[in-house]
């Protein structure tokens, strides 16, 4: 319980480490990296202990409190002052649909302090720990720790080695704060903090302008989403009268909030998800973000930071559930965006030469899966996919870093890699495990989580989400294919770079093996009950999915052998087509050589009638025109739009400044001054200093006045 109630310690450790490294890092024998590793290690250990405590809490719920009503009142009263209330009470869930066997709701552990006040109301800052938070803490802590260890070697001779570790620590602290946020204001805070860490770390090598540009682009794109986040949270605040996550979700789930407000809020929040989690069409910053060091890409841009959007939707699920009518529709904005993203990302991964860009587009595609899963109502599937994806994608990124370490820091698969399996056995093996997991081949992790997502799309909502289901299946095939291409180009064939590559040291291979291990077995945490006995089935769902009132009552897809087999076949099919193309060199001529006879001959010879169809019609089309067209659209349309908006704004600023501020506004001001000056200039002509002229004017004037006087009188 200690670690649940005092969860604030977990982010506080890396936060302290940030300051320590910043101020004392340079004086340490290992330039501050030891502080970072120790702090993140400790935070990870605490996260694990918190996880153990949470599992214990779920398994042995604290003795039921006297009365539900009384508990609620108690909570409300104490909210006003500095309280510490572990809502250590079990509340009977009112007739939950599937938790029929007297399911007990496990309340989250919260803890809060006054943060600020306005209008006489005090707002809190605090911790909010439930299964989701604990799971995220575990993922962030583990991957951050491994990335820290990995980085000691990867950025060894970097001039800003110390600062690199300082910001890794700050990022870890921010991300951990995000996942235990008690209220939406805190979420905004942590959300922007991770954005800044991302900016700093992408721009780590800021001497090169492209890196600084990529960092700026990432930050600005995210800032666009932040507008949505802020506005969405504001709408929720005024709808629910609180920033508190539990209160907002409880009210939303109970249907106490207006549907319009919830719809508006969830659409605004979706903008934030789209930018932070790289969803179509705000995804273009993510491939550019690969300009940062590889450990950063692994930690921020695949495993943790980019899933902040997924986390936020999961955290505010009551709002999305009601706002987008997830449970009762067959298509909605969230699912659609996710589905489109997953296809777009996967098809774009085909045409990249840069191994990190392949992985970046793959990340976009997998994030699309998660968003789609949330959109169709498969909450657990989304989070489970987040969980497994974190491991295998971090492993792939770190593997790519290891490879480039060996290849003179190049990431170009076509020019500088190839045949590396002979030189780098450890990297090769771990990369293969993670790749197979990514491709979704059983029994590795990716299969189980992807299968749940697909099952969700097939079964949930109002008669399933057919469009998303098809998109998901297509992507499964594409994923297998591009993964195979990537593996082939990197590890097979002949080495195309210069020099002899070497295997990376232990500080790099150890994290790879640990991650590969997780990539292999993480899927077992949520095995369906159709395969294994009840006691070990759906453990992930059991521990992570909230059961208390702040979470909507969602339904779960059931495991289907048919779907599992079909999706596996599609993934294997993708791999096979790609294997045939790359490894066996088949069909290479088909796009160049014309002629039906040639094609027919090949069809007969190769007996791959279907596969040829796949190749020419699907893979070829996707690899060729469609991928190129979509990449073109990506680079020239969406990216150009993003860049164009930036440039246009700057240009607009220049125009406004020149033609309006300088010309009109300042012009009016200066004009008033100048007209006074002009009048003065005209009048000074008569001020010629000649006394006699003054006198004659005076007398003349007097004479005229006298004349006037005489006439009048």
């Amino acid at each position, binding site marked *: 319980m200690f670690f649940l109630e005092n969860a604030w310690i977990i982010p506080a450790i890396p936060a302290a480490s940030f300051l320590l490294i910043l101020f004392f890092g340079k004086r340490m024998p290992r330039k501050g990296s030891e502080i970072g590793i120790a702090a993140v290690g400790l935070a990870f250990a605490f996260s694990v202990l918190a996880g153990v405590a949470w599992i214990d809490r779920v398994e042995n719920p604290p003795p039921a409190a006297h009365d539900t009503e009384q508990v609620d009142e108690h909570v409300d009263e104490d909210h006003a002052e500095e309280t510490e209330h572990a809502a250590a009470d079990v509340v009977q869930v009112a007739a939950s649909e599937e938790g029929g066997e007297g399911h007990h709701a496990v309340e989250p552990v919260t803890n809060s302090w006054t943060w600020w006040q306005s209008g006489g109301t005090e707002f809190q800052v605090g911790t909010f720990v439930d299964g989701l938070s604990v799971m995220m803490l575990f993922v962030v802590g583990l991957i951050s720790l491994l990335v820290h260890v990995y980085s000691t070697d990867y950025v060894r001779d970097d001039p800003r080695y110390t600062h690199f570790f300082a910001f890794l620590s700050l990022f870890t602290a921010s991300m951990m704060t995000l996942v235990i946020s008690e209220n939406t204001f805190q979420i905004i805070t942590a959300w922007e903090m991770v954005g800044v860490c991302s900016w700093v770390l992408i721009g780590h090598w800021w001497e090169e302008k492209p890196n600084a540009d990529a960092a700026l682009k990432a930050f600005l794109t995210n800032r666009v989403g932040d507008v949505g986040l802020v506005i969405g949270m504001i709408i929720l605040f005024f709808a629910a009268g609180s920033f508190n996550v539990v209160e907002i979700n409880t009210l939303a789930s109970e249907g106490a909030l207006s549907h319009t407000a919830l719809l508006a809020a969830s659409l605004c929040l979706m903008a934030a998800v789209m930018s932070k989690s790289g969803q179509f069409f705000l995804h273009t910053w993510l491939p550019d973000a690969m300009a940062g060091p590889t450990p950063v890409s692994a930690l921020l841009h695949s495993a943790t930071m980019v899933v902040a959007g997924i986390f936020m939707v999961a955290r505010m699920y009551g709002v999305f559930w009601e706002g987008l009518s997830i449970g009762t529709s067959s298509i909605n904005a969230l699912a659609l965006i996710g589905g489109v993203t997953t296809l777009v990302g996967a098809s774009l991964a085909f045409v990249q030469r840069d191994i990190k860009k392949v992985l970046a587009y793959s990340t976009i595609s997998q994030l699309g899966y998660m968003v789609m899963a949330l959109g169709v109502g498969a909450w657990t599937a989304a989070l489970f996919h987040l969980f497994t994806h974190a491991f295998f994608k971090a492993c792939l990124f770190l593997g790519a870093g290891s490879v480039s370490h060996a290849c003179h820091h190049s990431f170009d698969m076509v020019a500088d890699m190839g045949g590396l399996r002979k030189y780098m056995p450890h990297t090769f093996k771990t990369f293969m495990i993670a790749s197979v997991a990514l491709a979704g081949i059983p029994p590795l992790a990716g299969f189980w989580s992807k299968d749940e997502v697909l099952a969700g799309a097939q079964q949930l909502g109002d008669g399933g989400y057919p469009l998303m289901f098809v998109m998901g299946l297509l992507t499964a095939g594409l994923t297998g294919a591009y993964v195979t291409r990537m593996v082939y180009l990197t590890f097979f064939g002949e080495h195309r770079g210069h020099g002899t590559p070497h295997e990376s040291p232990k500080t790099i291979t150890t994290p790879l093996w640990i991650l590969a291990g997780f990539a292999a077995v993480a899927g077992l945490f949520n095995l369906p009950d159709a395969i294994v006995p009840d006691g070990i089935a759906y453990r992930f769902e059991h521990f992570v999915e909230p059961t208390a009132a702040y979470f909507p009552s969602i339904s779960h897809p059931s495991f289907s052998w048919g779907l599992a087999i079909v999706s596996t076949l599609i993934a294997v099919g993708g791999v096979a087509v790609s294997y045939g193309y790359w490894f066996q060199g088949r069909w290479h001529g088909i796009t160049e050589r014309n002629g039906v006879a040639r094609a027919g001959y090949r069809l007969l010879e190769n007996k791959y009638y279907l596969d040829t169809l796949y190749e020419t019609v699907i893979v070829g089309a996707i690899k060729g025109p469609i991928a190129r067209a979509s990449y073109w659209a990506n680079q020239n349309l969406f990216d150009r739009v993003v860049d164009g908006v930036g440039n246009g704004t700057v240009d607009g600023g220049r125009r406004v400044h020149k033609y309006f501020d300088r010309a009109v506004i300042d012009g009016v001001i200066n004009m008033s001054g100048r007209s006074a000056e002009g009048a003065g200039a005209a*009048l*000074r*002509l008569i001020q*010629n*200093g*000649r*006394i*006699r002229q003054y*006198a*004659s004017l005076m007398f003349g004037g007097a004479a005229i006045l006298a004349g006037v006087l005489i006439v009048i009188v």
Partner: protein
Amino acid sequence: MLLTNFLMLSSILFCIGVYGVLARRNAVMVLMSIELILNAVNINLVAFGTIHGSISGHVFALFIIAVAAAEVGVGLAMVLLIYRNRSSIDLDDVDLLKG
């Protein structure tokens, strides 16, 4: 009838004074012309005062004589200073106040 003569005299004096102020460039001459103008006014005041049997005209005339004396004093002092600084008392040369 008597009044008319006085007024004629004072107008003639006034006009001579105005002519002097406007036409002469010598500062001393200008000062003297101003003196003529003032005395023309004095004549007017005294004449009207006598005709109307009021004493205030005479009082004003005395007042003006006093002011005129002061004015000439200050004026001559200035002329003297201008002469010392510029070796000239030509008024057209003194145009420092030109805007």
